[in-house]
């Protein structure tokens, strides 16, 4: 019933897996914490909400694609929201902590330990290794730890079985696909309206100022009049993609795409590759043999600059990931507070706070898209700069 009430207010309760009948604040708090955790992680079903009293989940299953001694494709509905295992190719697959694990017979539980080993120069040094400390039949592990809410594994223990290569169309992949289609329709329609005449009509009227903003405020000042045209497609795509994805993250659909390190890594990695491949002589010279400083400085600066090449896109991916994740966590926590307080003063104060925060997140959604695009353009600009600007 509670979950039903939350629908339409927030991206909360993306995935709830069990039917707890308990009451009380302690339970509510841990429930909220768990829901936030679930929301931040990817999922194999597009889950909208759960009616806890009847135990029904509303949403739709997505295809699971595993590469593990051949290709296995099946619907995630076969997991029955984590209640069942799926047998494919002689292996039993199950969802544990929102990831698919698989084993033929035995689950190996390992622990990280350190030992002293001799290195090539004969010196002793510490080395981390994984020690398998416990084995368990797969069925027993599933029933104990994975099914339903399960119990927590003892501190420090983790599953060491090789995970299958997971190319499933998860909730995030589905969202990316859906948003991509949406972007295509939006901009395709906008582009079509230009065929009628040079003046923008309809959609284009709204989108054109933003496109021009990316061109005039981001691309041209950072890359320069001469080179900016080559990068426009990438800058526009990345700007609108991040922006729209961030906006969808604020809807009650419970999408959290840019709060995934793999997504921001993919985006930053593309920026990194394009920067390096469009780097001109000047760019590499500034990295390996900084002009205008005495030669001992050049030697000191080279490794620092080289490190900077990798740190820049790394900062890019962490910034986006951290901002969006933090935004979602804070917003969901405050929305959760409404239900913890359960009195009209606290709840309405929480509501006001959540509303203000949601407004702020709207700004952050655009701001992070802007910053990502802006820094990307800045890196491209430094790569294609031809003369010395110092």
């Amino acid at each position, binding site marked *: 019933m509670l979950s039903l009430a939350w629908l339409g207010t927030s991206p909360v309760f993306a995935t709830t897996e069990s039917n707890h009948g308990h009451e009380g604040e302690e339970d509510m708090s841990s429930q909220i914490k768990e829901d936030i955790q679930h929301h931040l992680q990817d999922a194999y079903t597009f889950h909208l909400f759960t009616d806890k009293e009847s135990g029904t989940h509303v949403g739709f299953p997505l295809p699971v694609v595993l590469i593990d001694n051949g290709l296995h494709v099946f619907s995630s509905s076969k997991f029955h929201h984590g209640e069942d295992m799926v047998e494919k190719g002689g292996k039993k697959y199950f969802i544990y902590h929102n990831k698919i694990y698989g084993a033929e017979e035995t689950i190996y539980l390992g622990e990280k330990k350190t030992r002293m080993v001799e290195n090539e120069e004969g010196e002793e040094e510490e080395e981390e290794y994984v020690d398998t400390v416990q084995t368990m039949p797969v069925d027993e592990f599933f029933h104990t730890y994975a099914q339903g809410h399960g119990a927590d594994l003892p501190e420090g223990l983790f599953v060491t079985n090789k995970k299958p290569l997971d190319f499933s169309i998860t909730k995030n992949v589905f969202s*990316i696909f859906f948003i991509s289609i949406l972007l295509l329709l939006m901009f395709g329609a906008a582009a079509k309206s230009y065929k009628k005449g040079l003046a923008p009509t309809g959609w284009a009227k709204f989108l054109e100022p933003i496109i021009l903003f990316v061109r005039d405020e981001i691309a041209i000042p950072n890359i320069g009049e001469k080179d900016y045209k080559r990068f426009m497609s990438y800058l526009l795509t990345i700007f609108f993609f991040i922006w729209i994805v961030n906006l969808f993250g604020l809807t009650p659909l419970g999408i959290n795409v840019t709060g995934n390190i793999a997504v921001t890594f*993919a985006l930053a990695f593309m920026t990194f590759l394009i920067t390096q491949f469009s780097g001109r002589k000047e760019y590499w010279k500034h990295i390996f043999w900084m002009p205008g400083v005495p030669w001992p400085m050049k030697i000191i600066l080279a490794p620092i600059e080289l490190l900077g090449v990798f740190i820049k896109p790394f900062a890019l991916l962490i910034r986006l990931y951290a901002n969006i994740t933090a935004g979602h966590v804070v917003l969901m926590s405050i929305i959760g507070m409404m239900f913890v307080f359960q009195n009209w003063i606290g709840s309405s104060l929480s509501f006001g706070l959540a509303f203000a925060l949601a407004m702020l997140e709207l700004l952050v959604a655009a701001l992070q898209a802007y910053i990502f695009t802006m820094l990307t353009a800045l890196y491209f600009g430094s790569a294609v700069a031809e003369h010395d600007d110092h």
Partner: protein
Amino acid sequence: MEKLINDFSVGLFFWQTLLFLVLLFVLRKVAWKPILKAVNDREQSISDSLAAAEQARQEMDNLKAENEKIMQEARIERDAMIKEAREIREKMIEEAKGKASTEADKMIESAREQINNEKLAAITELKNQVATLSIEIAEKVLGEELKSNEKQDALVGSMLEDVKLN
């Protein structure tokens, strides 16, 4: 950090990269290129139009200046013409006046001459008539006087007397 690496999903990375690249290339073809081209074309046409307008304005200014110049010239020419005409008029009046006065003088002169001539003629005629009259009278008087011989003698005598006196 370890949590981040644990959270990293290769599948999601793969799909994100693939879908993003597809999105990039499709959007590039169906949206960015036509939109940016249309915007560029429009900006080009706007700046062209502005330049054309500026040029037209310049031309108009030039034309205006030229008109002004022509007007000025025309005005000067007109003034000159008026002045010339006035001069000519004055000269003509002057000339006419001069001519008229000489003509008048001439006419007066000739009239005077004529009058003189007439007068002389009249005087001559008068003189002649007087003479004739005088002679006639004299003849009549003489005829009357000299009817007797004595009187004739007396007259001759007096006349001779006068001659002697001269």
